[in-house]
């Protein structure tokens, strides 16, 4: 008994130190703050969103559970189907343009030329300027009556210049030029144009970073083998930049798919819902109409599609890593 009593009890501090020396415990402890942040700022809103989408919640009420009622209503609505299609179309076309033009710009910027650093920094401008501000400038440029594009066109038209044998008329009358945001197909094209303009620098600079990691001796070897510029791009540049490209493209798809600001400022989904995206529709239903349950359902509809894109990216990166 006495021996047992004299054995010193480890103090709390000592026990803590011993526990932390165990790597498994230490790992969890170090992860805990991040986990807490994820739980509070991502998991909780997400679960709340899922719950709301299953209720008939109207602003100011708690709502009652209605199962998949909101989704039923959405699939019965052409406005939702149009917005879903628009989102897929918008994301696909904008991403293709951003990827192709971004690669082209990156290859150009990778060359050695005067003021290369300043030029590279300047290219980032559209990405840096707050989207709301730059989009407001585009809104003015697309204005139906006072569009700078249309005023330029009209000015050229009045000069009676001939293009391809066509002599332009002098007077347009009430016709003020293309309806950039009024014609359904032009409106979608305009929205895509602004998205590409804003997103292009991100692609270009990311690709440029990827290009600069390619060892120059590979190009030297290709030169010795007599490869042309195009062949060097196809067989050296592209395979080596592919992992960077996949990450950038997937990231861009996620951001473009959930784009909101451009459409909200330029068209608010008009004309005739032709530029409505899922994000703007969710906002219109949830925040505009106070129908928060349906708004949450629209927003959640984006989840499986984006989850698929991200799973593909993880699968691809893991496969590349194994290689």
């Amino acid at each position, binding site marked *: 008994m006495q021996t047992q009593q004299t054995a010193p009890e480890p103090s709390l501090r000592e026990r803590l130190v011993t526990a932390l020396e165990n790597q498994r415990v230490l790992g969890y402890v170090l992860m805990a703050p991040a986990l807490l942040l994820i739980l509070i700022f991502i998991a909780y809103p997400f679960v709340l969103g899922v719950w709301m989408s299953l209720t008939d919640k*109207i*602003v*100011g*009420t708690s709502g009652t559970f209605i199962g998949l009622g909101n989704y039923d*209503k959405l699939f*019965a*609505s*052409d*406005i939702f189907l149009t917005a879903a299609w628009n989102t897929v179309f918008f994301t696909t076309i904008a991403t293709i343009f951003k990827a192709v033009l971004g690669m082209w710009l990156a290859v150009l910027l990778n060359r050695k030329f005067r003021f290369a650093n300043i030029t590279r920094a300047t290219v980032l401008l559209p990405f840096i300027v707050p989207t709301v501000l730059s989009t407001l400038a585009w809104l003015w440029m*697309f*204005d*139906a*009556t*006072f569009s700078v594009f249309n005023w330029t066109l009209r000015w050229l038209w009045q000069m009676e210049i001939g293009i391809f044998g066509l002599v332009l008329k002098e007077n347009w*009358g*009430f*016709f*003020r030029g293309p*309806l*950039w*945001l*009024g*014609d*359904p197909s032009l*409106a979608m094209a305009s929205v895509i144009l602004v998205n590409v303009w804003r997103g292009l620098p991100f692609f270009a600079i990311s690709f440029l970073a990827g290009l600069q990691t390619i060892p120059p001796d590979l190009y030297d070897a290709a030169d010795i083998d007599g490869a042309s510029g195009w062949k060097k791009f196809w067989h050296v540049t592209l395979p080596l930049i592919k992992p960077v490209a996949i990450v950038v493209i997937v990231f861009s798809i996620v951001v473009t798919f959930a784009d909101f600001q451009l459409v909200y400022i330029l*068209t*608010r*989904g*008009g*004309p*005739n*819902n032709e530029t409505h995206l899922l994000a703007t529709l969710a*906002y*219109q*239903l*949830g*925040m*505009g*109409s*106070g*129908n*928060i349950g349906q708004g949450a359902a629209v927003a959640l509809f984006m989840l499986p599609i984006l989850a698929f894109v991200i799973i593909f990216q993880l699968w691809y990166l893991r496969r590349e890593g194994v290689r």
Partner: protein
Amino acid sequence: MKKTEQHQPAQKRSSVTRRDFVKKTTAVGAVVAAGAFLGGKPPAYAQSRKLHYLQWSSFIPDADTEIRRQAEEFTKATGVEVTVEMINQNDMTPRITAAIESGKGADVMLLINNQPHLFANGLDDHGSLMGELAGGDIYDWANGAVVVDGVARAVPLFNIGNAIVYRKDVFDELGLAAPNTWDEYLAVGTALKNANLPVGQTLGHTFGDAPSFAYPLLWSFGGMEVDESGKVVVDSPETHQALAFCKEFWEAACDPGGLAWDDTSNNRAFLGQTIGATLNGASIYFVARRKFPDLADKLAHVNNPEGPGGRYHVIGPRSPAIMSYSEEKDAAADFIRFMFQDDNFSQFISVNSGYVQGLTPKWESHPVWSSDPALGIFSTNAKYGRSYGHAGPWNRASGEAAEKYIVVDMFARAVQGEDPKAIAAWAQKELENVYN
């Protein structure tokens, strides 16, 4: 144990008593002050308090200045510091939603149309304030806009009327008379478009001018979203007729750019002299009178044309409302009383120069209507007024349908050449989705 139990309530009472004291003395103060208020003086508060008032940014800058002046006067008289925030009307709805959901935000907000129905669950009971300020005199439609299930959720303050503003000089030059029917407007518009000054009208997704044009056009041909019982009846021969007419009118008379316009575009186009007529509030005339007096002399107004189903204008009151979560309800109510005070509201009507109308008959004889012959017509809006969701009652669904621009998009589709019957069937389906 007993001792502790005895102590707890005592502790509780002492801590709450202090708060209660402040609350009660404030409430008593407010009641006393309200008495003085009826005599035209705002109440004075003992301590410094803050009130946040959120409203749209008016197209009449002087109106915003006047509201700021009233807020300053209110602060001087009561010691309650009023923060006035003014934002784009298109951004008001999301702000209100976010505020109610988070339980934080402005104490008083200026609601539009049937928003009291949309946000009823986040708004205070305004029954006594309504009785005190509007009494039994208020127009029925304005009453319907704020009373939800028998409870007033806001107090209607004013309406923004609209009328077709046109270039009288061009009409005279072309030998045109102000149109009385849609057919006459079609003929007038055709002549205007031939003279390169077409009719300018938006059919885009924007809160004011697009529905103000689309709904009355539908109604005047006898079409409607829902019947009196609330059943969706938009897919009707009358609607088909309205859509077919709109296509003809758009092609022959309108500026095609309207599909992308927002509420400010027709103002700019008219003042930039690229259109000859447009449905609008008095803001175009107001700006012209101050900045382009020569142009203002050439302007005149006429009511919406009459169709087989009658003549209509969209009406919808602007109603200040106290939010349920506000901790300054007494001060908020007093601020609303202050805005309703005869001298303040009269001044508000005056600076708006015909842009707004009061919602009780006594304001029909306000001097502003006789001060300028060009403005008198706006006072007649209430006579032709109908609200979204006509002929059904005011409710949340009509607001959601308006927010989704279903009626506006019917006409936007029609002018792009879609078949009226297919469009009306589409609208029927979408509206049933909202109303049922």
